């Protein structure tokens, strides 16, 4: 966490400049198909970021985001819409963007659990899967409105997660993590042998439909044709913004303080009245709720769920996003998700080796930047708050 800050509020411009550059870069990276160009762009990004860091530009961008988070947050939403609008007809790119958005939501959930409460959850993908299965079953067999189905996905993930509460509360650190690994393996086996839920073949998920408007039809407004993924994009953005605000407010409250205190020293926290069990339960449940909602929407986007989509390896990816981005920093989570999801997808040559790439990336980050790409800052309860 960083040290002293100047008294006056930082300028908003470095943040705007960074957002504009990031938007242009994202469009270029997503548009380019040639492997050599993609590698060139990635190398350029690494060099540019290191140079900016060396010149102290990154620090001023960081200050800008810390002090003007509300304005820059709105602009970041606009940036995301700009990128999506640029690829409005391109199913493949939009699906990639949607994956980024929903993985970010899921990792934000993980961030509440591990980043704040210190409960390491190696079953992230399982709770994501529970959300997706909820969509599959409810959309096929009930008339529950699909937006409410998303909510049920989150609630079911939170509910099933509460089965783990007792063992997680009775164990600490690595042992609690083992409990979640055991759960992930059990759930996968359960889904594979359970014919009602489609067994190993999985289930189809009906697409989203709100007030009779089907999300799985392409959109034509005037003469402009939009990919059907654009409507999913809008819903996913709303979900992401909601999750982001929730996580931010949670961190910047007495609850965030309780969670930090119990993560860092459970005994000392107890001596100052922090009800450690209550807050661990709150964090674990809230995290699973977010992961479940993201999974429910992802199921509808993909149109298909199977046990093999939500394995232990996928949970590891979610955890590695958190480690890479900067534990406890939602902006870091967003940036890391983009890297982890987009890079292997664009660099087809490394597709086969992507786990190797993740492993290397994590080792490099842990060695040279152990707090992640964007380390968490000291808590300022409101952006730019200087009493």
């Amino acid at each position, binding site marked *: 966490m960083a040290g002293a800050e100047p008294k006056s509020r930082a300028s908003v411009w470095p943040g705007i400049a960074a957002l504009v550059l990031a938007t242009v870069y994202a469009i270029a990276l997503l548009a380019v198909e040639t492997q050599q160009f993609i590698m060139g762009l990635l190398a350029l990004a690494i060099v540019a970021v290191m140079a900016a860091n060396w010149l102290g530009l990154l620090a001023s961008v960081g200050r800008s985001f810390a002090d003007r988070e509300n304005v820059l947050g709105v602009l970041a939403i606009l940036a995301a819409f700009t990128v999506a609008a640029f690829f409005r007809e391109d199913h493949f790119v939009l699906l990639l963007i949607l994956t980024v958005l929903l993985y970010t939501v899921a990792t934000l959930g993980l961030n509440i659990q591990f980043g704040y409460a210190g409960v390491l959850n190696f079953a992230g993908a399982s709770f994501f899967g529970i959300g997706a299965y909820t969509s599959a079953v409810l959309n096929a067999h009930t008339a529950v409105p699909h937006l409410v189905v998303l909510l049920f996905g989150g609630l079911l993930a939170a509910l099933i997660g509460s089965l783990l509460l007792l063992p997680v509360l009775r164990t600490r650190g690595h042992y609690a993590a083992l409990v979640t690994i055991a759960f992930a393996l059990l759930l996968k086996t359960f889904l594979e042998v359970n014919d009602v839920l489609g067994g190993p073949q999985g289930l189809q998920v009906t697409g989203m439909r709100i007030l009779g408007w089907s999300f799985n039809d392409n959109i034509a407004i005037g003469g402009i044709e939009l990919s059907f993924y654009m409507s999913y994009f809008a819903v996913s953005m709303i979900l992401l913004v909601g999750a982001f605000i929730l996580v931010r407010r949670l961190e910047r409250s007495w*609850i965030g303080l309780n969670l930090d*205190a119990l993560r860092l020293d459970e005994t*000392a926290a107890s*001596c100052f*009245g*922090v009800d450690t069990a209550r807050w661990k339960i709150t964090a674990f449940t809230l995290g699973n709720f977010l992961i479940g909602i993201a999974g429910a929407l992802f199921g509808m986007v993909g149109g298909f769920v199977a046990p093999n989509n939500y394995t232990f390896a996928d949970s590891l990816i979610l955890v590695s996003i958190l480690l890479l981005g900067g534990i406890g920093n939602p902006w870091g989570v967003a940036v890391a998700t983009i890297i982890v999801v987009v890079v292997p997808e664009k660099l087809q040559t490394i597709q086969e080796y992507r786990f190797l790439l993740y492993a290397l990336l994590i080792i490099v980050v842990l060695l040279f930047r152990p707090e992640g790409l964007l380390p968490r800052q000291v808590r300022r*309860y409101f952006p730019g708050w200087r009493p």
Partner: protein
Amino acid sequence: MTPLLEARGLTKRFGGVVALDDFNVDVLPNEILGLIGPNGSGKTTFFNVVIGIYGVDAGNITFDGADITGASPQAIYRAGIARTFQRSRLSLPLSIFDNIMVGNHKRLNQGLWFNLMQRKEFKRELDDNYRAARALVEVFEPRLADKMFEPVAGLPMIDRRRIEICRALINEPKLLLLDEPSAGMTHDETSELMSDILQVRDRHNKLTIILVEHEMGVIERITDRCVVLNFGRKIAEGPYREVAADRQVQEAYLGVAL
């Protein structure tokens, strides 16, 4: 005068080791009681029992008229007992302000709805508590009051001790347990810290302190009364000068003369 804290027949065993053995003590309101004894004589165990980290095997503790034997650390904190730790146990990555606010837990609104949705009200509570925390820090070290949002990790030992004591004092406890506040500090630093503690005590005069300390100069200077422990048993009680002259106490520290 009715004692603020009353321990009767306290016994705590760890396997075959008897850490506290039928220990009785009365702590009177507003006094500073020194708790001394050789290493391993049960001083810190007594703190951990009072604060509810350890249960007891026998005996009971009454605090402010209520039986608190076996209560949770959370309940005992709410009853008005706060402590510092022998090895500084601050949350190092958190700011000074955050660390102090951990100690203010019972005065902060813990509602989920309040914290997440009523941000205006939250801001008001935040501002009030910031002023209180800053005022308390200023008593100890005005220089630290300008660093309220810096991580504790970068501060020297004496400042960490100060913040630890601020964390214990922010919610105005009735009883403060200080576990070796001089550990890891120089003689001058210790003396400075003790003056600060006395200053805070004079401000709100309802503070009772139990002090565990090896630095006898500190004990002599600030305690009203001392209790000496050896192998979990009380071997002497009284003003420091009397206790220090006690033959049993000298033997406990120096060994038996042959």
